[in-house]
Every structure is written in structure tokens, then in C-alpha cells.
């Protein structure tokens, strides 16, 4: 029978099927961080059980960590307490821990691939919805709740009904200035934040085949924003080249054998999906969001739709625009902004910093803009310096911070004040996401760069 990439990986990890219930699903690799793991460890303690396979779980601190002065003690006592809990729990249960200050530390979804923990055909979970990122390698990866974090540590399994399958095909040629983030925001604007619910997506078509691994990670990262549990892309030579030689990737003969297996991980030509979406790459513009969920996105040259043009309730829509301080039919270009955030598990990788730098090179940061440039890991940070990007950024008036989730979710010190507008390369523009009252405009690194140097929303294509 013809099967999809998703079927192949899923079916090979089902320990048993429960009648009128979920599958007992085996997890190869498990990431934990400080926020969603402490209560899971408490559960293990109260049940008096050990971690079944400590070598399959990897801990890193990212959500709470400050992005300056990381050598000093963490000032916020609650954050410090959570970071300490992760360190202590990892030590007690024999789990590898890349805490604050460790050279491998960074955002969980950046460091996993960077160290070859993420592999094609693997099943990967983490108590974080953006675990979908790892699907870029042809893995099944998705976010789980804390009860499931405990389950995985106790038994290396979770109980999951198999999701339906969706394929999103993007073919054709992307216009200049349109990148992976725009492709993802465009898809979400078409599907809405609930259009993918109940599905696991496969991204297919020449646009994804030609995309870098960093770009594929950006796209898969945002799968959850259309409601899909995750998204994946068939592994290819680019995937293998990215992984070869990484810390946890197989070596020598094991590598050769692994690649042989990975080459079989693709959807059969006549396999059937429950749903398919076809998109012409040429239709995609550089995207910007104007509302309070990631589905509320439009091309930068467009104006905000009126309530009667959008699906869903007018009341919710108007509430959203009121929160943003926008009106129906407003033009986006030229809107003043206050903050720019480059970073997060969505766009905190080297390619994102290259793209941002290319735009700001030879220009100056606008005086009205506070910019936070936050690498996704120490490895990315080092690369920014090695490639000379830091010199260019410094010359343009930007400062590079230290790795962490930073302003994506306002759990650390990097918060956007109430009423202020932030052009952010992160993943959510929910009310208060970047701080109580903050107003987030999601965009690509080059859109963020264009806003940073002009102090307002600007079509980045004008700055090439």
C-alpha cells in the first residue's frame, strides 16, 4: 500500500494500538526546558519512578534566561528557582543539561538540530508547541503538555491518536524579498489558526526542496500556528549535509547505514492525503500581521481587511483591531513602530542574521526604534561574529544580545511595554504575548530590518 512520509515514521513507532483509543507511541528523542518540566519531575517523585531512558532526554534552559549579563546570577528569583530546578532534576535523573552559561546552551529548537540530536525518521517531543520545528529534518516532532513530559520520562511513550494527513504544496518561483517566513505566514493566513487542527502537515513542492535547512525549520516551526500538530519535509541531500559530523549524528558505518534508511523516507507517488492545499509561489508577498493571531496576516502592500471580508465573528475581529490600535482598511506601509525583535526558535538562526544584516548594512538604526537582536544559541552567536556580521550590525547601531527565547514570550526581562508596536520575527502576536498590552507585528527578518532602519513599516523590497 502506498504510504506518506508521515505514515512511515508514525507507523514504525507504534508500540501498540488501543481499540477505540490512542496509539501507544514511542518517542526517540525528548527535549525538556525549565518551564514545562518541574511539575513532571514532581510527578515522577510522587510515583517514585525513575526516568526509563535518561539518555533519550536532553535539557536546555531558554525561556526564562536573561539575554544580557548571563555570567551574573539571574535577578528574578522565580526564574532563578526554575533554572535551578531544571539543573537539579537533570542531575538527579542523569539527564544531559545545557544550562545557562554552557557553550551548547540556546533555544531548545535551535540547539537540537545544531547538535544532531534531531534526525530524519525520529520521533521528537518537547513541552513546547514549536517542537514542530524539527519536522524540517523529516522527523515527526510536536509539542506536548507536562503530563506527557512525565509520561515520556517514565515510559518513553505517549498516548496519541494518529492525526489526519495534510499536504501543502508550494510550487513556482518566489518573488524577490519573499522568504520562508513569508511562505509560512501566507499559508497560515489562508488556513487560519484552526485550519490545520487535527492534521499533521507535509510541506512539498519545489519551493521547499530549494529552501535551506534554516528556512525549512522556520516553516515547520510555524505549523502549530495553523493548528496543525506539526509539519514535516522529506529529508534530502541538504538534510544529510547539514547533519553530517554533528555531535549526536551517527558516525562512520552507522552514518552510511542511516543515510540509506533516510533516503527511503518520502511519500509514495500515489499516496493519498486527507487534505491538500496548492499554492502558487508567485502569489506570495512579503508578509506582515495586523491582528492578534498569526492567521491575521497580509502582504505588506495591502490594507487591513474589513470585518465583512474575513471569516469568523465580526465582534472578535473588531476586538482584535481595537487591541492593535488599527482600523479596518488601514494601509500597513508607513505605520510607526517602536521595537524590533530578531530572534526566537522561528528566526534566530544564522541565515536570519545574514538576511537582517544585508538590509541594515550601510544604514543606521532609526532613533525611535529599540532593537533586540538575539541569537538562538551560542553557536549562532559565534557564527555571527566569525562571519563579520557583528561588525556590520555594530556599525549600523545595533547591539547583539545573548541567546534565549527573549522577547518572544515575555517570560524574561525582554518585554515590550503596553501600547508599543514591535515588529517581531517570532511566532505569536497574541494579546500581551510580548508583555502586557504589547502590540506585535509578525514578519520576516528582512521586514524587521527594514522597519529597524526606517522606524516604520517599510516594504523591504525598496531597500535592496
Amino acid at each position, binding site marked *: 500500500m502506498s504510504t506518506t512520509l508521515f505514515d512511515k515514521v508514525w507507523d514504525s513507532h507504534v508500540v501498540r494500538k488501543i481499540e477505540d483509543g490512542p496509539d501507544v507511541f514511542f518517542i526517540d528523542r525528548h527535549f525538556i526546558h525549565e518551564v514545562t518540566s518541574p511539575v513532571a519531575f514532581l510527578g515522577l517523585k510522587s510515583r517514585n519512578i525513575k526516568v526509563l531512558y535518561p539518555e533519550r532526554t536532553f535539557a536546555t534552559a531558554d525561556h*526564562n534566561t536573561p539575554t544580557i549579563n548571563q555570567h551574573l546570577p539571574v535577578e528574578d528569583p522565580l526564574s532563578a528557582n526554575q533554572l535551578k530546578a531544571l539543573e537539579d532534576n537533570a542531575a538527579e535523573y542523569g539527564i544531559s543539561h545545557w544550562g545557562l552559561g554552557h557553550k551548547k546552551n540556546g533555544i531548545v529548537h535551535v540547539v537540537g538540530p545544531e547538535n544532531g540530536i534531531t534526525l530524519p525518521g525520529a520521533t521528537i517531543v518537547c513541552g513546547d508547541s514549536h517542537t514542530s520545528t524539527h519536522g524540517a529534518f523529516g522527523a515527526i516532532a510536536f509539542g506536548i503538555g507536562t503530563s506527557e513530559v512525565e509520561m515520556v520520562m517514565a515510559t518513553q511513550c505517549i498516548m*496519541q491518536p494518529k492525526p489526519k494527513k495534510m499536504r501543502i504544496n508550494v510550487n513556482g518561483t518566489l518573488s524577490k524579498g519573499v522568504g520562508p517566513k513569508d511562505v509560512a505566514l501566507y499559508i497560515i493566513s489562508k488556513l487560519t489558526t484552526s485550519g490545520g487542527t487535527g492534521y499533521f502537515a507535509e510541506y512539498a513542492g519545489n519551493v521547499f526542496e530549494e529552501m535551506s535547512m534554516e528556512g525549512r525549520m522556520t516553516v515547520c516551526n510555524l505549523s502549530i500556528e495553523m*493548528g496543525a500538530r506539526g509539519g514535516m519535509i522529506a529529508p534530502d541531500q541538504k538534510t544529510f549535509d547539514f547533519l553530517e559530523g554533528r555531535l549526536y549524528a551517527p558516525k562512520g558505518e552507522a552514518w552510511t547505514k542511516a543515510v540509506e534508511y533516510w533516503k527511503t523516507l518520502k511519500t509514495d507517488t500515489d499516496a493519498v492525503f486527507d487534505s491538500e492545499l496548492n499554492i502558487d509561489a508567485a502569489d506570495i508577498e512579503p508578509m506582515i500581521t495586523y491582528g492578534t*493571531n498569526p492567521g491575521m496576516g497580509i502582504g505588506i502592500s495591502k490594507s487591513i481587511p474589513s470585518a465583512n471580508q474575513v471569516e469568523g465573528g465580526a465582534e472578535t475581529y473588531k476586538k482584535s483591531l481595537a487591541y492593535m490600535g488599527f482600523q479596518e482598511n488601514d494601509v500597513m506601509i508607513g505605520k510607526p513602530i517602536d521595537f524590533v525583535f530578531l530572534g526566537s526558535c522561528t528566526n534566530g538562526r544564522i541565515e536570519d542574521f545574514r538576511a537582517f544584516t544585508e538590509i541594515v548594512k550601510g544604514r543606521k538604526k532609526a532613533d525611535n526604534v529599540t532593537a533586540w537582536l538575539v541569537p538562538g544559541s551560542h553557536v549562532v552567536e559565534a557564527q555571527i561574529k566569525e562571519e563579520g556580521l557583528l561588525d556590520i550590525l555594530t556599525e549600523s547601531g545595533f547591539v547583539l544580545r545573548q541567546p534565549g527565547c527573549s522577547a518572544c514570550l515575555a517570560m524574561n526581562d525582554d518585554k515590550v511595554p503596553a501600547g508599543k508596536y514591535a515588529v517581531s520575527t517570532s511566532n505569536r502576536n*497574541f494579546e500581551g504575548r510580548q508583555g502586557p498590552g504589547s502590540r506585535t507585528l509578525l514578519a520576516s527578518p528582512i521586514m524587521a530590518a527594514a522597519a529597524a532602519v526606517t522606524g516604520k513599516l517599510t516594504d523591504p523590497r525598496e531597500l535592496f
Partner: protein
Amino acid sequence: MAYDKFNILTSSAVPLPIENVDTDQIIPARFLKATERVGFGDNLFRDWRYNGDDSPKADFVLNNPTYSGKILVGGKNFGSGSSREHAAWSVYDYGFRAVVSSFFADIFKGNCLNIGVLPVQVSAEFSDKIFAAIEADPNTELEINLPEQTITLKATGEKESFDINGYKKNNMLNGFDDIDYLQNIKEDIIEFADKLPY
């Protein structure tokens, strides 16, 4: 952690007819710093419920004494966003035992089932009827019958069935959780793991 058993719940309900209620509204990230599962109910819908100076916002439904009960009725696509189980904990800690919506986000729904909050997905029409009934009489009661898998508007007797898989239903009825099940098949899991490539 094993939780309360769920059988038949009859209660008035709190209406929140807003679509796409995301997990950051249910509990903002800055309240996720606890290392124990305590006190989350206080911060349920924190920024919709309180002003910056912690004074209650009078127009938010949880601050309106007219509405109370163990059932929260939300708009379409309830619980979208993050995987934080804290969102489900805060719903539970506040005192809700069931959430009704015409559409749930996946992870939130799973988290609710894992901690003993019953997500009840109804048709858009029935959801409208519930909101209208509560508006007409805030004390009107809903009956959620898990064994029968039905939700009933007590005042009129109008009823709809809802889905839940047999395994999860059994867990909810008996207060079992997944780890109880998985611990019992550990040997199978180890045998399975030994055959995997990594």
C-alpha cells in the same frame, strides 16, 4: 497524577463568547514560573480579568457575580497556541470541570483530558443555543453526562451528543491516567525500543 472521577456534571455555566481564545490569554507566560502546580486559578485570564494595578476589570465575565458554575463555555477554536498544560491547570484550579466549545485546539484538548477537565465539543448551532440560554437566564443549567456522552440544556431538554474515545472516557470515569496504563506495559516498550534504529 490521578485526578477526580467525572460522571455526570450538572451546573450553571460561565459564557465567554470570544473566538480563538489562545493559551496566552488563558494564562500569560509570565505566570508560568512556578515549580509546583499551585495557584494557577488566580491567574486564569489574568490580563482580561485584572487591570495593570491588579484591580478587577468589572466588565470581564469572571468578575461578574451574575455568572458562576463549573462549566466554561468558550467561542470557536478555544485553547489555540502553546502546549502549556498550565492553561488547563488554571481552568481546573479556578473550579471548572468542563469546557464547552464548537472547536478546540488539539494540544489544549489533550491537556484537559490528561488532567481531568472534560472538553465537550458541540456543533456551532448548539453552542449558539447555549450562549442564548445563558444570556436569557444566567442560572440556567447544563447537564454533561459522560457515560451517555450527551450535553443537555436542562431548561428545554435540548440535547446533543459529543465524541470522546473509549479509552479516554474510561480514564475520566475512573480517574485513571496514562502513566498507570503505560507502566503496566513497560516490558513491551523496552522490547520495542531495542529494535529501533535510534
